[in-house]
């Protein structure tokens, strides 16, 4: 040994000190107080408000906003908080199926934080929304998970002026933002272009007309109707320029066809990349020759064999069969339904949004994948 480490005057004292390490720790462990261990902690309690576990909620109010749209208000068993623009996932048992859908929250953040209430505004268009429109009644119980998504104002990267582009039922996240700006939970300038076919299709029109706040400006754009006080046509660069000066970040929520059109219009104005944000849309069924495949699903120690329609996403087939499986964004992006492919072929709707290692190790997102053969999957518990 090149040198002998010595700290104390006599080296053996360093050795003795070492032998005391165990005695010291033993004494510390034995002599600590016997007060009961905490069951929870302040940060963890706040985290429960910010990221609640799936909640059993009661439907306490239904308002018909238009011939095909209603707002449903749910009472939560606890307080919750979110950023205006985020979405919730509503789940119900319909017949033998366990179905869920993501919907943008239309109520304000403080309503959830102070009153424990959350509203979803839903247009009757498919299986779940038709059930809600026709069957749901006050007093019914649902499972609600929230909040999710990144469709909100981010002060560090977005311009302080947001140009909102809403198409049809895409108004809901912006309605929450407007309420948020009014109550002070959100702080940015919003110019909202709200597109619909006719004035009758404008959900929240009466409420929006009452908004009086110098941070908020609302422009209605009707494609199929010409009338005073409304812009006519699609939401174009010309219409946007008429109301907006200077730098802005555009936030778009509506059908994919609207995204294609408005993105091109914004690009004409030199607005693209990080300055354009889209809310994702649920993956729809696809047009293929009718065919049914066999889907073998492992959930914990149970094995289920269900039918999978080639036209539907794998997630939809599992839900239809009544399996309790994880579902959140239904657009392939959030990864919550992350499942292991044991065997079989599949196609992904749109871009592959999986993590790199998921592709490598054969994980798929059933919410945006269609079956192309019989398949076997290991799926987390829903």
């Amino acid at each position, binding site marked *: *040994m*090149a*040198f*002998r*480490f*010595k*700290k104390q005057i006599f*080296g053996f004292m*360093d*050795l003795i*000190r*070492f032998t*005391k*390490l*165990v005695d*010291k*720790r*033993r004494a*510390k*462990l*034995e002599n*600590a*107080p*016997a*007060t009961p*261990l905490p*069951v*929870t*902690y*302040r*940060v*963890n309690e*706040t*985290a429960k408000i*910010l*990221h609640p576990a799936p909640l059993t909620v009661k439907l306490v109010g239904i308002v018909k906003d238009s011939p095909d749209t209603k707002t449903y208000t749910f009472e939560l068993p606890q*307080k919750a*908080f979110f*950023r205006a623009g985020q979405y919730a996932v509503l789940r119900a048992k319909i017949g033998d199926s366990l179905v869920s859908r993501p919907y943008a929250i239309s109520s304000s953040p403080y309503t959830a*934080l102070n009153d424990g209430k959350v509203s979803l505004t839903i247009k009757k268009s498919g299986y779940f929304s038709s059930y809600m429109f026709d069957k749901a009644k006050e007093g019914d119980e649902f499972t609600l998970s929230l909040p999710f998504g990144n469709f909100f104002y*981010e002060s*560090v*990267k977005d311009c302080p002026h947001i140009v909102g582009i809403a198409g049809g039922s895409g108004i809901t996240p912006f309605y929450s933002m407007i309420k948020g700006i009014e109550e002070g939970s959100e702080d940015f300038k919003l110019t909202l272009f709200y597109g619909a076919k006719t004035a009758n299709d404008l959900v929240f029109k009466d409420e929006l007309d009452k908004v009086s706040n110098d941070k908020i400006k609302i422009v209605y754009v009707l494609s199929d109707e010409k009338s005073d006080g409304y812009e006519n046509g699609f939401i174009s660069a010309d219409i946007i320029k008429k109301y907006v000066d200077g730098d802005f970040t555009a936030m778009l929520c509506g059908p994919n066809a609207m995204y294609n059109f408005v993105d091109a219009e914004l690009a004409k104005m030199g607005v693209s*990349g*990080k300055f354009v944000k889209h809310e994702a849309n649920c993956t729809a069924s696809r047009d293929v020759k009718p065919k049914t495949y066999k889907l073998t699903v492992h959930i*914990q120690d149970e094995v289920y064999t269900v039918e999978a329609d080639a036209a539907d996403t794998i997630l939809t087939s599992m839900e239809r069969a009544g399996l309790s499986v*994880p579902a959140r964004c239904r657009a392939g992006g959030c*990864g*919550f*339904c*992350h499942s292991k492919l044991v065997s079989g072929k599949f196609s992904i709707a749109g871009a592959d*949004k999986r*993590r*790199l*290692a998921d592709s*490598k*190790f054969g994980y798929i997102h059933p919410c945006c994948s269609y079956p192309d053969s019989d398949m076997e999957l290991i799926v*987390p*518990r*829903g």
Partner: protein
Amino acid sequence: MDKYDAVVIGGGNGGLVAAIRLLQGGAKVLLVEKHNLPGGFATSFKRGRFEFEASLHELNDFGTKDNAGDVRDLFDALGVTDKIDWTEIPEAYRVISREEKIDATMPFGIKAFIDKMESYVPGSRRSMEKFFELAKTIHAAQAYSNSVNGATDKKVMLSKYANFVRVGSYSVNEVLDALKMPKKAKDILNAYWCYLGAHCDDLSFIHYASMVYRYITKGASMPKMRSHEISLALVERIRELGGDVWFNTEAVKILTGNDGIEGVVLNGGKTIQTRHVIANCAPHLVYGKMIDNVPERIVKATNARKFAGRGLTMFLGLNKSADELGIENHNYFLYDTMDSKKQYELMKKISTNKVQATVCLNRAYPECSPKGTCMMYFTTLFMEDDWGNVSAKDYFKVKDEYVKVMIDRFEKDTGSKISDSIEEISLATPMTYAHYCGHPEGDIYGYESQYWDGLTPRLLMMNEDYQNGIRGLRFAGGYSMRLSGYSSAYFSGDISGRQTVGDIKREG
């Protein structure tokens, strides 16, 4: 009722490795993880065109095929090394304290490290050589201790590893002062202290020196597809060996009787019969809410311990390249002061904590994000529960303000300009860590490496802690005997997994 030889609770780094070790030992194993993904903090997430690394700065002690570190040896033994594509980290670290005029970039390799230190701090060479000599002995003594499962022979220790015993009871600063290391060299060498989460007057020298030694001699690596690649590779291996892994499955109760562990109750009501549990989570949670009628000696022993740093990480996806933005290095430590005790005090409050350990992943792996972009993550620790004072109502505002503090710090210290190029941003706070992993107060570092509860006493008391606990219950992960950090967590799973194999043989 389902019956397993052992149930692993939590699929973090420690739990995943423990499950493989149990399976290799012939046990029938169930691993339950409450999240939908494996890895705990070892994961990734996507935002727009970026896939962010959630936590790993670099995997220490991995080395190369020819110069394998202990982690590579472990991964070889587990059968996962070749399932993962690795890339090497270019340099050890850059440490900056603008206020104290320190700016040093340190290389890998003992000779290069000592030479570079001598260029920054003339006259430091002799003390640095002694430091590495001590560190080498510590490393060798630890290897010996592992080879005999902690049951070391006193005579062997004193004849072969006497310096290990001589330095073993001292803190980092006590030893470096005894080596007469110049202050500035100490400051640069100690830059890593925040990775272990205790200041250098408290942190055990053995612990620190062994980490620095591994890092400087073996280098560090990174899985190309982020730590999610490691976590999935470990799950793959568990399933290859016949183990069961259930996601979105939380263990809510651990059942005990006169003879220790009897079973585990899962959310949803299912009960698993087992006589052995490896808990990859905090003893505070296990004894605080998962087990009923915990003996008083265990309550006391748990109360004695101190939570380590509560985590916060900011993730940025930037729409310019690292070159364009002037980000030169892979790995930065930015401090107010190199006095780690003072710095530790400043890290207690949101209003005073401006420390950051920052990574630009493109500097290790240029292809990690699309061409013309780069990806960064900025991490800090809070040494007190100050986020507990933040109400839900103020939460988003406090977050936004803190983000600005972190960006400002980085820009001022390094001279690069990043604030105009932020395309994606995400901030994980103690609330986020509390939510995803359930840790008390958002603690990401387990129990603090305080002097009395450091690496050496924990390892020396490993068997005693088990005897004083509940039969059949062992721990893995950052709260256990190897303390926090990726490699430590993997080793804790290795140790607890192998020990449980022995327990099963002995205890049934």
